[in-house]
């Protein structure tokens, strides 16, 4: 693969993480536990889908003759590059919050590094996104603490959520040829450094929440390479239904 192709894949990964997580969050709209959470959930979802749009527009330019909507609505499972973590179902609110926290704590240091990318478009989109993700992380961290240090029930639920989601965190930091090439070109992030910041932040929030950090056991992976869980197909079927059913239509 050439560096151009690596860059496309790299940008698509950033896009798909934001798109799939934004899509998941939007499933909560109208069903959140409080009015304030309706707003917050919609808000975070809106930020993420907005970020996905920026990344996809860039990816489309890199591919030439494509557009962001085509990339979002006409790629199938094998061509989606999001990590497995973000496609996990919402579950209860503890599961949604834990997924959000584990991702936000990765997303922020990643974007902050990318804000210094040698690729000006990557740097620009990352810098703008990092501001939003700073808020996301503060919010999801606060909820982790509320749940961990709340009632017996909230504690039980958040412990269960963390335990179920932990095996999907390894993939966030596992580099492959794409990551290596982009790092070497000064475009991509150093995942080891991102992991260090992620880890420090997780420890800090877990300590305040009174939660124990799970052991790093076997980690699931494959999403970045297009090998997904069974969940993604349904998510895409729902998301893509209209443009697929009416390929000639403009909306």
């Amino acid at each position, binding site marked *: 693969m050439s560096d151009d192709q690596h860059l496309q894949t790299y940008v698509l990964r950033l896009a798909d993480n934001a798109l799939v997580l934004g*899509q998941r969050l*939007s*499933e909560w*709209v*109208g*069903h*959140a*536990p*409080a*009015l*304030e*959470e*309706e*707003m917050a959930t*919609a*808000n975070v*979802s*809106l930020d993420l*889908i*907005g970020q*996905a*749009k920026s990344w*996809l527009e860039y990816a489309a330019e890199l591919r030439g003759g494509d557009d*962001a*909507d085509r990339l*979002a*609505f006409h790629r199938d499972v094998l061509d989606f590059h999001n990590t497995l973590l973000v496609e996990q179902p919402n579950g*209860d*609110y503890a599961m949604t919050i834990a997924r959000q926290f584990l991702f936000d704590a990765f997303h922020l240091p990643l974007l902050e590094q990318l804000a210094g990318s040698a690729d000006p478009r990557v740097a620009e989109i990352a810098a703008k996104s990092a501001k939003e993700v700073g808020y996301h992380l503060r919010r999801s961290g606060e909820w982790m*603490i*509320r*749940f961990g*240090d*709340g*009632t017996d*029930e*909230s504690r039980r*639920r958040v412990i269960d959520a963390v335990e179920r989601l932990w095996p999907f965190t390894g993939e966030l930091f596992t580099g492959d040829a794409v990551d290596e090439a982009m790092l070497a070109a000064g475009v991509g992030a150093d995942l080891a450094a991102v992991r260090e910041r992620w880890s420090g932040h997780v420890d800090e929030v877990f300590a305040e929440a009174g939660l124990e950090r799970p052991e790093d056991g076997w980690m699931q992976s494959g999403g970045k390479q297009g090998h997904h869980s069974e969940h993604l197909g349904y998510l895409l079927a*729902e*998301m893509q*239904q*209209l*443009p697929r059913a*009416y390929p*000639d*239509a*403009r*909306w």
Partner: protein
Amino acid sequence: MYSQFVDTGSDRVLSSEELEGLERAFQERIDDEITIEPRDWMPEKYRETLVRQISQHAHSEIVGMLPEGNWITRAPNLRRKLILLAKVQDEAGHGLYLYSAAETLGVSREELIDALHAGKAKYSSIFNYPTPTWADIGCIGWLVDGAAIVNQIPLCRCSYGPYARAMVRVCKEESFHQRQGYEIMLDLCRGTDEQRRMAQDAFNRWWWPCLMMFGPADGASVHSQQSMAWKIKRHTNDDLRQRFIDQTVPQAEHLGLSIPDPDLKWNEEQGHYDYGEIDWNEFWQVLKGNGPCNRERLEARRNAYEDGAWVREAARVHAEKRARREREAA
């Protein structure tokens, strides 16, 4: 109109001469266009009427998230998805302003929400209609928000200050939503045959329910007259409905949609459109709980609230623990 039938507790409207003492002084302030604020004395029925109306309005914003929320995950492109998300987020915000406005009248948000979930409080009948196609999202923006704006602009001059001020903020966002809805319809109507069919079908289904949003005909509503005497309302239901029809028909024509009312025609003499008879039986049935989605809407809200109870409880308990620790550390 998001509060289409509000009980004022009145059998008839008393004239100023029939009122005494505080009630009379209150009515004089109203007649002089002096805004009523939370600490001012007000008749109990005025207070109760406003609680009903503002809470119905708030509930409508919240229940109204559901028919549109139904399409967020399926919006046909990224731009539409972002706009719809932003819109539904605004609606939650409107719900919050309105519950706050209602709370200035001495009730709590929790009581009001409990009344909604118990089926004791109303919300706009319009949200009991389903959104089976994407064109329904266009119609909700264009027609439902359009009708809401016609109703809410005069509410910006409502005699109760906190409600009037909430409406000023709400109206700005609603006009934006309405334009977006119209834009969806425009794209559909200029699109493929299938898209035009979708647009016409949705329009046929939403037209009459939107006219019902303005509430019962004037002759049938003593409550309306009382609300007008108190300047909670500024115009009658039929006046507002007529205004909505007059502004909407040319928009429908511009879209190339036909209006599902054989009796609709321009009345040169009156300078208004004449329109056919509204199915008032359907209106009262939907208000009573027999609309196509009443059960689902209320169930969805109840489930969200019940499933979220442990979340709210965790937040409360954590806040207490934290406050206690801070006290002990001080």
